[in-house]
Each structure stands twice: as structure tokens, then as C-alpha cells.
């Protein structure tokens, strides 16, 4: 019991220290800056020069702690991982591209790439599709808000929690005994034999994808719903007067109008999919042909302790995220330009 109390106390102290340290840093560094390069009132001459110096230094004072953390925890590791991927399993000897060449020939890696591609095709498209359909339907009904809240709810649930929820849905009891998993209950209700869904190659990957689709649809729905609200009412009204039916309006007006948002939603979910780890780790740990890159990387890192191969797989994940990253940066820069 005492160690629990100690732990809670430790957390409380950490919060207090962190806040105090941050306040002290910003306050003291600003005070020092103003003191060193005083304002016109203090020094009289050279004040314009001092103003300029302060203007140059202050932004960096403001950004220093954040940049320090980003450098240590994100920028440096990215470079270091690339370096480690060129070293051997103990990170000592240089092996060139051997780890990558190994990966290309490795069954587990090939399987993972294939599965990741399947995930990339299926999950973003179905999440976005369902999200769009639910957004459109919900906006037309009085109880749409409640419906949206319920569909959105899985967003708050951890991947592991969601895995347990769905593992229960997929639960399998041998034929003849009563099925407590919903899916097998439906299947046996239709007179078909029950299946151990999680161990059924190819299909099992799809059952795992369902979990992520279930989580991400809420995200797509919220973003797309906001975009749909942004369509000018006159545009829709004009189409109605022209005699367009709801289906035509959906495909010919709504979708083109919110196309930009659909792309953003799609790419965001794509990035989630590329990093998906928890679901596979909790459900199958890559067994029965469900392996994906993130889980494979974890295995090489923490089960086999081969940092070279683990790093090489991480770099592959990074490379697959790279096009979207560049596209995001360009988009952000374009927005910056219009401000």
C-alpha cells in the first residue's frame, strides 16, 4: 500500500515541479532578457538596437523548451533509427542495406506488407464511406444528434478495449454448444456451422479491420458532418428546384463540394492504419497470417532484440507515411501564405 501512496505522491510532485519549472523558466528568461538588453527608458542610447536584439531572441526563448523536447524525442530518434537500420542486431557493426535486403526476402515481412496494403485499401474507404452516409442521414432526422453521439463513442475507447469488445463478438464455442459470441449465434441461427473467426486466414484480417472501422467511422462522420453544414443552403435549394432527387444531390453536389475534406479524412485514417499495432497485438499477435508492419517491428525489437531489423521495419513504416507528411506540410504552407 505504501508504494501506491508513494507513486501517487510522486505524480503529484512531478506535476507541481513541472508547472513551477515552466513558469520559472519563462518568467526568469524574459526578465533576464529585458534586463540585459534594457528598454529605451533604462539606457537611453542604443535602444533601437536593443529592441531589435530582444525581438530576435525572445521567440527562441518562448520556443526553447518545446523545441528541446521535439529534438530529443522525435527529430533525433528519426535520424538515429535510420542509422541503426544500417547496423547489425547489436547496433555495432555496419551492415549497409542488409537489413532491408533481409526484409524483402522475409516471409513475415512480405505477409505484413500485403496485410498493410489490404488494411490501407479497406479501412479508410469503409470508415469514410460509413461516416459520410451516417452524417448525411443523421443531419436529416430529429434524433440525428443522439445517433451521431453513439456512433462517435468508440473514438474514446482504446484499441485494446475495442479488441476485447470485438473478441467477445467473435467468440467461438464448438459446434453443438450454445454460442455466446454474437457473430456465431447469428451464423448458427441461420443453420450454418460456427467458425473460429480469428483463426480463419484472410477473413480474420477483415474481422480485425472491422474493429478499426468501428472506431474511425465516428471521426470521419464528425469531420464530414461539419463540412456538409458548410455547403451553402442556396446551392442545395437550387438543385431541388431543378428537380434533382436526394441521390443526385448527394453524388452531384454534396460529394464534389466536400471533396477536400474527404481527402483529409481519408489521409488521416490512412496514417492511423499504417501505425496500427494494438489491435493485432491484442487479438492475434500476428498469428494466423494477420501480421502487420507495426507488430512485426515490435517483435523484432522486443522479442528478438534485433535493433537493426526492428529499425529497418520502422523506417519502412516511416517511408510509407512520408508522402502524406509532405502533402500535409505543403497544405499547411499554402494556408500560411493566405494569412
Amino acid at each position: 500500500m505504501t508504494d501506491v501512496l508513494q507513486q501517487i505522491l510522486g505524480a503529484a510532485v512531478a506535476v507541481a515541479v513541472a508547472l513551477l519549472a515552466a513558469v520559472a523558466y519563462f518568467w526568469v528568461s524574459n526578465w533576464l532578457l529585458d534586463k540585459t538588453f534594457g528598454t529605451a527608458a533604462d539606457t537611453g542610447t542604443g535602444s533601437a538596437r536593443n529592441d531589435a536584439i530582444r525581438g530576435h531572441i525572445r521567440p527562441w526563448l518562448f520556443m526553447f523548451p518545446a523545441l528541446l523536447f521535439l529534438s530529443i524525442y522525435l527529430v533525433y530518434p528519426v535520424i538515429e533509427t535510420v542509422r541503426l537500420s544500417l547496423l547489425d542486431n547489436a547496433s555495432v557493426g555496419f551492415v549497409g542495406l542488409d537489413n532491408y535486403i533481409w526484409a524483402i526476402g522475409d516471409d513475415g515481412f512480405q505477409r505484413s506488407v500485403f496485410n498493410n496494403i489490404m488494411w490501407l485499401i479497406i479501412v479508410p474507404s469503409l470508415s469514410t464511406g460509413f461516416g459520410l452516409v451516417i452524417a448525411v442521414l443523421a443531419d436529416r432526422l430529429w434524433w440525428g444528434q443522439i445517433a451521431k453521439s453513439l456512433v462517435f463513442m468508440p473514438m474514446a475507447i482504446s484499441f485494446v478495449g475495442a479488441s476485447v469488445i470485438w473478441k467477445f463478438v467473435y467468440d467461438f464455442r464448438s459446434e453443438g454448444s450454445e454460442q455466446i459470441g454474437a457473430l456465431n449465434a447469428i451464423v448458427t441461427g441461420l443453420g450454418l456451422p460456427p467458425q473460429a473467426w480469428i483463426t480463419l486466414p484472410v477473413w480474420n484480417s477483415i474481422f480485425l479491420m472491422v474493429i478499426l472501422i468501428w472506431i474511425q467511422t465516428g471521426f470521419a462522420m464528425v469531420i464530414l458532418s461539419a463540412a456538409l453544414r458548410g455547403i451553402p443552403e442556396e446551392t442545395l435549394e437550387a438543385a431541388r428546384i431543378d428537380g434533382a432527387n436526394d441521390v443526385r444531390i448527394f453524388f452531384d453536389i454534396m460529394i464534389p463540394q466536400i471533396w477536400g475534406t474527404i481527402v483529409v479524412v481519408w489521409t488521416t485514417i490512412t496514417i492511423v492504419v499504417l501505425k496500427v499495432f494494438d489491435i493485432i497485438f491484442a487479438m492475434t499477435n500476428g498469428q494466423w497470417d494477420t501480421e502487420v508492419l507495426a507488430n512485426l517491428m515490435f517483435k523484432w525489437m522486443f522479442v528478438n532484440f534485433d535493433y537493426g531489423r526492428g529499425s529497418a521495419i520502422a523506417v519502412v513504416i516511416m517511408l510509407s507515411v512520408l508522402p502524406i507528411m509532405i502533402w500535409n506540410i505543403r497544405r499547411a504552407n499554402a494556408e500560411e501564405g493566405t494569412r
Partner: protein
Amino acid sequence: MTDVADTRVEARPQSGIPEFLSRINTGKLLTHAALLFLVILWTFPTAGLLISSLRDKDQLAVSGWWTALTTATVQEVTRLGTAEDQIEENGQFVIRGNLFGEGDNKTLQNFGLTANTLAEASPGDSLEMRDGGAITVEASGDFAWVSDTEFTHTRGPRVFYIAAIPPRFTLENYAEVLSANGVGRSFINSLTVTIPATIIPILMAAFAAYALAWMRFPFRGLIVALVVGLLVVPLQMSLIPLLRMYNGIANVFGAEDGKTYLGIWLAHTAFGLPLAIYLLRNYMAGLPKEVMESARMDGASHFKIFTTMVLPLSFPALASFSIFQFLWVWNDLLVAMVFLGAQEDKLVLTGKLVSLLGSRGNNWEILTSGAFITIVVPLIVFFSLQRYFVRGLLAGSVKGG
């Protein structure tokens, strides 16, 4: 997402059909049905978990959660007592007991002496026994095996029966999972990780965001681009170098490994910073320019403007980020496993749940109640602060989880 009222005007067909009939048009009905179907599909798995976690564990193991309100029947067998258990009453020899054992609220429906004849007798009936005498079983499971001669058997005969279990809801599963399975400890661990990791990045990010939004300096565009880029960098890229670094530091201090709460707080802080800076910068940049500039004219320093004006005004964005960070850290598995490890006393809830999936994979009473404990805090945060969550989502939708 609630504020905009539905102002759409619907043209009503003018026809001879009565008003109420024309209002029920098939299109609208189809919309209702389709949405209802989707909503049920989306809520049904979570409902199953919640209901199951509250069910009696014996019932949970034999029937689907959708039958939770109906009475289930089980076929069971009990071995009766031996000659040693007999007592003498009024010149007769009797063996008494209860087929169900103590404290079970089953109801007997039928019983018999072999597996094939278990429906032979009803409660209150008597059956002749091979070891002599006859047995009478009541609906409560109480039985009396009465014989005129003394019992001599050394092995109790078996009684087969069908019993009804009335629906029963209980919090026992929660009590068990919280104490016996260590989920209570993991809950505290999760809080220990999450709260500092949510609070520490806020101030740091806010200062940086202010500089990026309202100060003019060289390389500003480059740093914004860096932050946007780092938003989507896979965590996998950070794990190995950081783990090596932590272990290196631990070696210097003579510790056995680098798995500490301090380590995971700082890691989560850094991993949350890109989103924090991005969200806050976008929000701060949207604050009215005139107000900021007039404050500058009046001689207020950047530091003063930030602390007295920008920080209070940015409350909604700070709230959005805090919710994101809280949910993300609470729900995280990967970072916790790498930087805190899989030791029993350091497992956070997600890690605990994974270990239960491995060790108690068929004990659904443990898994469902354990899972519900891990998701209840995020659900409360989510439903009470949904406004801020949605706002943050709309502002930061380039972030990739």
C-alpha cells in the same frame, strides 16, 4: 456540432392525401430505418460488453448476453452422500442434502438417475434407488433419501437434473477483477501516467504556439513545417533510440533499467507536443489582430500579452488539447509497454487487459468487467466534454492518431 439548427424548408406535396399520411413518406421512413440499423450496429458490441460484465459468471459462460433477461436452464449432475452421511430418524435411515450446493438460487425442473433419464421425475416425486430406499427432491434442490434398512454403500450414486437459473445481475465480477486480478492497481498506474503527461506539455506548447502565431522571426515557416511534419511521424521511429538512451542513462545512475514514470511522462509530453503546438497556434492565430496590436501599442510586452490575454482567451483550445492528450495517453499501449515495461506492478490498464486476454482468455466475466473499467474513464471524459473534443478534432484533423 449541435449549434446549427436545421433550417431546411421542405416542400410538401399538395395532394388529396390526408396530411398525416403524406407526412409519412417512404423516403423519410427509409432514412429512419437505415440510421437506426447503423446505430444499433455501432452500439451493439459495447452494449454486449457492459451487460455481460454485470451478469452472473456461470450464466455468462453458457448463454449469449442477449438472453440476459430470460431464464436459462442447465443440465448438471451431483453425487449423493455415502453411508457415512446417514442419520436415523423415527426408525428410518435418511441422507439429506441439497443438489445445488449452498447459496445457489437455481430451481429444479426435472431429475433422474441416469444421464438418459434425467427428465424422469419432477420436483416432489420419488425415485427408487439401487442402493435401497427412495429419493425425493424438492424444487429448491433439497433432497431426502429414505430407506428402512441401513445404508452400506461407500460410493454416492449420482443424480442427474435440469435446473433453471433465473437472470441474475451482480457487481461480483467487478469486485473480483479489481482486487484479485490487480486491475485496481493498474487503474492507479494509469492515472499516475496520464495526469502528469496531460498537464506537463500544456504550458510548454502554449508559449511555443504563441511565438509561432504572433512573433516575426526568421525560420518561422520552417518550424511550422517541422511541427506539421512531426504530427504524423510514426512512434515506431522513436522507440529504439529512446529506449537505448533511457537504458544508457539508467546505467550511469546504476539502475537496472530505464523504465520509470518520469521517463514515460517526458516521452508522452514530447509525443503530444506537435499536436498541442499545432492546435494552439491555429487557435491563437485566429484571435483578433486589432486587440493584440493595440496592446502592443500600449507598450505591453509579449510576455504580458501572452499571460494576461492570450492564455485565458485560448481556454477552448487548451481544453481540446487536454482531452486529446488525456484520451491518447490513457488509451496508449505501445509507449507504456516500451517505457514502463510489463512488470505486474507497473502495468497500466491497457497492458493489464492484454495480459488478461492472454492468461484468462476464456473467463469472459474477467475480461468484460476489466475492459469496462478501462473504458469507463475515457467515456465519462468523452461524453461530458464532447464539445471541446469535437472542436479540437475539427481544428486538428491532419493529426494521425
